């Protein structure tokens, strides 16, 4: 049991605070820690706080729960900060990111993290997160700063450049898409096992398979796979089984579909992020994905978020009425997010492996050093150590290098508040490739989102 001070930044979001708490409540190592909820929206923060206090009561007051709208207060003496903020209205602005560049002729298929739309998302988020990261470093230079906010790679690159000594990691759950299927890919007989045995086999495979990955967030590839018990290289098996497993009936227009498999067929490496994310960064997406599918995807995300909020509201009303359900809001299933696992791994010096976003340095040799890459990280008390990849296969490296070039310029434009660089960045994006279009996109987006964007000059 280690008593830490953990700050949840953006905790007023029903989609962030409660699920993160869910994982913490399952941790015995963190018992007794102080969890400080921080949000700038006091009304939302208060509601989440009340729910969390109630949940904590159900769990025998495992944690000390605090709340504040004052960042300096929250970060004081903190050991860990977990940041998941969204500057502006997550979906309202996301729809603009998705629609406006497209309406001017951009070939980007979905705009969250890449493409011209991803530029504006970055421009809204980065200045706010940099302020937070600077405060975190000021408060405690040894603090672990965990970022969940998107666009992950660009935000992390900005943090790396502006607060270079901050100990940070960016986390994303995208690998779960593959993990869901991996046991059945690696063991063709797993499906025919009895249900108990099937669960056992499933868990056994997941617990003992080490997956080496490389790339950028939402743009990464499986590079290696090893059975940790036997040391056996599982890549031949994985490659042999992959297309056998993913018969067309298993293709899913949001995730593993035509774009992912075209990449796999042409380039020989499997991207585990799903069509919707891969599509953000590459021109080829327009051939293999449908814009309308991603309309549906964003709508589905929005509905999911609304459902979380409605459920939260119901619980909140019952709390107010004094009829809070005995079992509480949180379940006993882990959320799939890895922040708590990483914190535990560091505290307990576990040498576990997690997929992380960290500064490249020399993890991937044929990508720029000054870049934040997604890779396999070894977690122990010394911190997070990226597993060296050496050189990525050249085809993938080329595609990543193109996106890295855009990110380099994107972050620079935002940090310098330079309109010229912003337009250059949008124009250079392979899904734009045109100055006039870039300028039109910029002008319209700036007029719509001015309040949330840097003062581009």
């Amino acid at each position, binding site marked *: 049991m280690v008593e830490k001070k953990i700050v949840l930044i953006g905790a007023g979001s029903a989609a962030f605070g409660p699920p993160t708490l869910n994982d913490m409540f399952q941790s015995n190592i963190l018992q007794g820690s102080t969890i400080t909820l921080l949000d700038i929206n006091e009304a939302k923060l208060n509601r989440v706080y009340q729910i969390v206090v109630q949940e904590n009561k159900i769990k025998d007051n495992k944690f000390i729960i605090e709340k504040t709208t004052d960042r300096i207060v929250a970060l004081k003496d903190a050991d860990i900060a977990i940041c998941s903020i969204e500057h502006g209205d997550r979906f309202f602005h996301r729809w603009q990111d998705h629609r406006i560049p497209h309406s001017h002729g951009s*070939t980007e298929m979905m705009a969250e993290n890449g493409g011209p739309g991803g530029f504006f998302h970055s421009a809204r988020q980065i200045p706010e997160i940099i302020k937070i990261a600077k405060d975190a470093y000021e408060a405690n230079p040894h603090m672990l700063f965990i970022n969940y906010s998107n666009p992950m790679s660009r935000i992390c690159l900005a943090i790396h450049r502006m607060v270079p000594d901050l100990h940070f990691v960016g986390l994303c759950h995208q690998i779960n898409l593959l993990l869901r299927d991996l046991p059945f890919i690696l063991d063709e007989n797993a499906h025919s096992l009895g249900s108990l045995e099937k669960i056992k086999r499933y868990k056994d495979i997941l617990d003992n398979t080490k997956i080496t990955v490389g790339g950028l967030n939402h743009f990464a590839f499986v590079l290696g796979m090893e059975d940790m018990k036997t040391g056996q290289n599982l890549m031949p098996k994985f490659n042999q089984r992959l297309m056998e497993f993913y018969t067309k009936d298993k293709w899913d227009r949001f995730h593993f579909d035509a774009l992912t498999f*075209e990449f796999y067929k*042409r*380039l*020989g490496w499997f991207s585990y992020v799903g069509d919707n994310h891969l599509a953000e960064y*590459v*021109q*080829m997406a*327009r*051939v293999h994905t449908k814009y309308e599918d991603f309309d549906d995807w964003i709508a589905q995300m929005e509905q999911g978020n609304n459902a979380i909020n409605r459920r939260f509201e119901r619980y909140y009303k019952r709390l107010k009425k004094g009829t809070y359900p005995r079992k509480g809001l949180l379940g006993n299933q882990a959320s799939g997010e890895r922040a708590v696992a990483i914190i535990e791994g560091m505290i307990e010096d576990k040498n576990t492996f997690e997929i992380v976003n960290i500064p490249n340095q020399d993890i991937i040799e*044929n990508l*720029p050093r*000054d870049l934040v890459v997604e890779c396999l990280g070894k977690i122990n008390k010394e911190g997070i150590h990226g597993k060296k990849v050496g050189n990525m296969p*050249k*085809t993938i*490296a*080329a*595609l990543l*290098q*193109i996106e*890295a*070039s*855009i990110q*380099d*310029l994107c972050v*620079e434009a935002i940090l310098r508040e330079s309109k*010229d*660089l912003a*337009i*250059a*960045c949008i*124009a*250079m994006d*392979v899904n*734009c*490739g*045109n*100055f*006039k279009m870039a300028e039109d996109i910029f002008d319209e987006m700036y007029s719509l989102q001015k309040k949330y964007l840097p003062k581009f000059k």
Partner: protein
Amino acid sequence: MKNHRIVLVGAGSTSFGPSMFCDLFHSNILGGSTVVLHDIDREKLEMLYELAITENERIHNNKFIIERTTNRSEAFKNADFIISSIEVGDRFKLWMQDYEIPRKHGSTQILGECGGPGGSFHGFRIIPPILDIVKDVEKICPDAFFINFSNPMSRVCLAIKRTVSKLRFVGLCHQIGFMNKHIPILLDDRLQNKEKAGLTLTEWGKLHKKKLSDVKMKVGGLNHFGFLLGLEELTTGKDLMLEFNAKAMPYFEKRKDRFEFSTLTFEIYKRFGFFPYTGDNHLGEYIQIGQEFTKTQDMIDWINHADQGGKAIYDKVIRTYKRFKKGKYLKKGMLPRQPTEEQAVPIIEAIINDSNLYETAVNIPNKGIINNLPQDLVVEVPAIVNKEGVKGIKIGNLPKNIAALLRIEASVQDVCVEAIITKSKELAIASLAIDPNVGSFQKAEAMFNEMLDLQPEYLSYFK
């Protein structure tokens, strides 16, 4: 004077051979050397050889020992310098295919010589024979200094660097000539209006030369994709970039030329703040933005213009040869009285004389010259030339907007060269697909297959 052995590879070319003869004959340092003309086309080689020995004998008092051979091993034996300018097949017929076929399949490329899918096909054809040549250099004369003139320059040089890593080489291009021509005029009003300044043509020429010799340009980028990064007045040490930037737009707009500096150059300069010195036609090859600011017909006209230029030179050489055969050789010889703007001979001289010559634009392996471009890349930068060879001058980081554009092209080059070296059809198609002027595996495959049908003799090595 040491007897150096200088080999011209592709010497049967009427554009390359005579221009090199011209520069060699202007060199005093190289007098007494052996010049070996090498080509695989025996007939053309014989013609150029006869012309070269005639010039050498009649005009230049046997300044050189001139040999010719179609046998590469023989040519390379004991060679000190090798200047290579080969082209594969019928250059303009193939170039037109490089341009047209990808466009037919939906590529937005504008020229197809050194970049875009056309540039890739050009690379696919020409790089394998060039690699055979440099492997022979490694085997037969490993200490020789190798100069490449063949396009696509950056890709050819990258393939050379990767295949024969110890080779001492440089890639040369005369594109910097635009800057040599314009910068003195831009900086000195007297050169803009010689009548007003009361200058005779000779005086004008002298002043231009003087002015040029007093400026030092700093450039950086890739071949045909380089930018002016710095400008210094040598006598005073004054930074002339402010003056350049103040005068450049009015100056170049007045001299707008669709084959030189035009709308695309101006737009990139205006948007990015650094002047691309290679001309619209070349700059536009590497970027998606090219299509926005160039006209299709202009680019077709450029290919035809280049073709006609080559043919005119060819016709002139043929006429001279016919006169020679009739015993009526030109009294003053066939070569121009001024050296060309090509830098091969000055570089060889600087190596021999250890003269620390400042060369404004050479193509050499990056290795720490430009920090924010891949290290395993051949860049166009200034260099100092002395007996150690050609040493690039460190640039540090390029401005991020330019670096981003260059890195996109560098990524395509990386895969293109890998495809050639590994003879991989999959990689070849991938390299075409990754090019932002294609951006589709389907288009890439369709153009590859059609080009394979049209140029099987050059492309069927891909497996």
